[in-house]
């Protein structure tokens, strides 16, 4: 990262997604990256690599994450950029961590605060509601996604609002909010740059913090050319960012209502906090007179002082920056304005009752587990075919639909790096393991796999049969990887060589060299 691109003026102001993958051959003059024509340093690619698309969705049928991941890997420019960009975030996170001597204590503290709050959730939610009402905030309760959407629609109808600007919110993704709003004729304009790109491309966010991180700038150029009329040949990030700003700013200024999520809700003050890097939540909240905040009930913390713990962890974990550019506290409506908070359950209470999985509610949506996950980095977030991708997705998605997301807990090597980076110490990899057991118990696994595992279990528990099966190592190769080639294809040997069978097994060597007794 000694590239002169680091010193480019304005680079720090760009949304991370708008910064192209490092290009070692790029040329710079007077601090500006030279275009192909100016630099003449590298050949023009005839056609950019097409953007790989996410998992194929077939109603309730199990998502085939592996299939979508394979297509992502088959697009090497995308895969390489994605892996390196997110690994870079992970490294920046590590650097920030090393600046904080009490990092591990902070994580423990954050985890303890969340666990305390989740086990007293009703009390704190009641406290928040009372204090928020006293602050002049309208508080609504939504049992599920449909109720959330209806409530918001109702508020908008009361104000005859026809357009809504909103900042990024995973909760509204959960609720299928944009689709619902489209069905009732209300225009939604995403104000987070990455999320806006995704909206224009009719794709879900692929990452909870950097929603378009799977796209190359050539992909963005294509989306903008198709939707806001930019030059399809121009993928310069400054040009694209500026064009988007010009196209969206009038929509923001004319919007009837604004919507944000909420990163933290403080019970004792009846206030909430929104963290962004673009200031777009502040536009969404402050430009129109009507501000609606949709917030999951697990976002609550008891006291304002607890915020200090989480704010120190959030952006360091997410992007490796000490703090988000904007940490905005919303305390009540402005003069002449109106503020609504919709507290949404949508499966959270039920999750809270799951003995092995309730601590997944501690999640503060920093995305650190995604950035560190070697599987996620090589698969792209859209391969998961779910609102939440990456390690946290593997343990949350099945709570929404165990059948549809039954493959996801298997999309992990169980390496455990996710657990170690988690700022609130969710034992993510252990929950992935536990979900595998749970899905087998619920019979949400393929029958062929089931039969193979049963056969393996039987063979491995009968020494004589087992020895006969692997009498020579050549035979072993055919038999031992039963659990390895259960799917009928030689999945081991497709992209790697099989082990070289030795002359004899350890067992035969021992018998020959150490005699017959034990």
């Amino acid at each position, binding site marked *: 990262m000694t590239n002169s691109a680091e010193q480019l003026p304005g680079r720090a102001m760009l949304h991370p997604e708008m910064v192209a993958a490092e290009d070692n051959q790029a040329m710079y003059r007077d601090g500006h990256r030279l275009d192909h024509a100016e630099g003449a340093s590298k050949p023009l690619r005839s056609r950019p690599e097409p953007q790989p698309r996410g998992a194929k969705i077939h109603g309730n049928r199990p998502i085939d994450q592996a299939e979508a991941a394979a297509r992502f890997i088959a697009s090497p420019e995308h895969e390489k950029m994605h892996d390196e960009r997110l690994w870079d975030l992970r490294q920046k996170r590590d650097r920030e961590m090393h600046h904080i001597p009490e990092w591990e204590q902070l994580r423990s503290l954050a985890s303890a605060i969340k666990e305390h709050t989740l086990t007293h959730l009703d009390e704190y939610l009641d406290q928040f509601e009372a204090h928020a009402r006293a602050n002049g905030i309208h508080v609504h309760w939504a049992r599920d996604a449909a109720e959330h959407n209806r409530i918001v629609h109702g508020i908008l109808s009361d104000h005859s609002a026809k357009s809504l600007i909103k900042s990024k919110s995973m909760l509204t993704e959960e609720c299928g909010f944009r689709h619902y709003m489209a069905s009732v004729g209300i225009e939604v304009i995403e104000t987070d740059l990455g999320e806006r790109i995704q909206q224009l491309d009719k794709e879900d966010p692929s990452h909870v913090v950097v929603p378009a991180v799977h796209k190359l700038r050539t992909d963005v150029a294509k989306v903008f050319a198709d939707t806001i009329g930019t030059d399809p040949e121009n993928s310069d990030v400054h040009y694209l960012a500026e064009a988007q700003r010009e196209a969206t700013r009038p929509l923001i200024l004319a919007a009837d209502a604004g919507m944000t999520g909420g990163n933290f809700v403080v019970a004792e003050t009846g206030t909430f906090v929104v963290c962004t890097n673009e200031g777009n939540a502040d536009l969404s909240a402050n430009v129109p007179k009507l501000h609606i905040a949709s917030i999951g009930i697990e976002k609550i913390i008891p006291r304002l002082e607890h915020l200090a713990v989480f704010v120190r962890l959030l952006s360091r974990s997410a992007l490796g920056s000490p703090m988000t550019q904007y940490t905005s506290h919303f305390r009540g409506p402005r003069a002449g304005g109106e503020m609504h908070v919709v507290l949404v359950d949508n499966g959270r209470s039920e999750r809270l009752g799951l003995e092995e999985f309730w601590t997944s509610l501690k999640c503060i949506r920093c995305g650190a587990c995604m950035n560190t996950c070697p599987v996620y980095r090589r698969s792209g977030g859209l391969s998961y075919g779910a609102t939440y991708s990456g390690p946290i997705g593997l343990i949350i998605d099945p709570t929404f639909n165990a059948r549809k997301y039954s493959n996801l807990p298997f999309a992990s090597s169980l390496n455990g790096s996710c657990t170690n980076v988690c700022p609130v110490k969710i034992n993510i990899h252990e929950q992935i393991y536990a979900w595998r057991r749970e899905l087998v118990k619920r019979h949400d696994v393929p029958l062929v796999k089931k039969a193979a595992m049963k056969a393996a279990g039987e063979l491995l528990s009968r020494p004589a049969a087992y020895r006969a099966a692997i009498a020579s190592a050549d035979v072993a190769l055919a038999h031992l990887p039963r659990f390895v080639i259960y799917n009928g294809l030689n999945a081991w040997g497709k992209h*790697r060589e099989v082990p070289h069978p*030795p002359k004899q097994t350890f067992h035969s060597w021992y018998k020959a060299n150490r005699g017959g007794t034990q």
Partner: protein
Amino acid sequence: MRIGLFVPCYIDAFFPQVGIATLELLERFGHEVVYPRDQTCCGQPMANSGFNTDCAATEALFVRNFSGFDYVVGPSGSCVHHVRDNFDAIEQTADVKEVRSRTYELVEFLHDVLKVDAFPWARFPHRVGLHNSCGTLRRLKHATPSELHEPFFSKPMDLLSRVDGIEFVKPARPDECCGFGGTFSVFEEVVSTKMGYDKVGDHARAGAEYIVSADSSCLMHQQGCAERIGVPLKFIHIAEILNGASA
């Protein structure tokens, strides 16, 4: 002391030299090492795939084979992790608990129990990249993982640095998973092999001649990946180096 030698199934079948090196190494320190003949597997492949009930009989067999030893030692971190941390398909009798708590992975056994500080017979004048498997690194805690803000230590490095002539290289992503992951290696074979390609490429760029690890399963996967894409690396289990393998 009397040690039960645990030779995991894939080491028995594909890497007998690792079992032999482990046996000989433990004997060098004057211990009685016994290989129970009826052993097969610890049950991990089924358990990791969620089929816990299918490994009950295999776990019971493991306990029958390894009861009564002072220690059970195996040269495979992920198998030992299974025995110690997950092995719960069978009733947790006193005997089962006893076997589980006495089961050690070779590196930690040498480092923590035997406290070995010299391998005078070992010489390995090569550049090696150390691969800590995720099982040894993040479960058995062989070393400090890069994600945590904790003082650095590395048990395999401690042991290997007592081998004459050895030189370590530093890959860019030293503790990134290589993509083996048990049945993950076939369930997600494309992602798994891509991770493997990246891993061997990282070590090769760092100048490694050998990748050394306490887990033959990771090495089996990495070797398969390296051979497929033509990365000229060699692979060796830590037991072999510590037992004096020359190359």
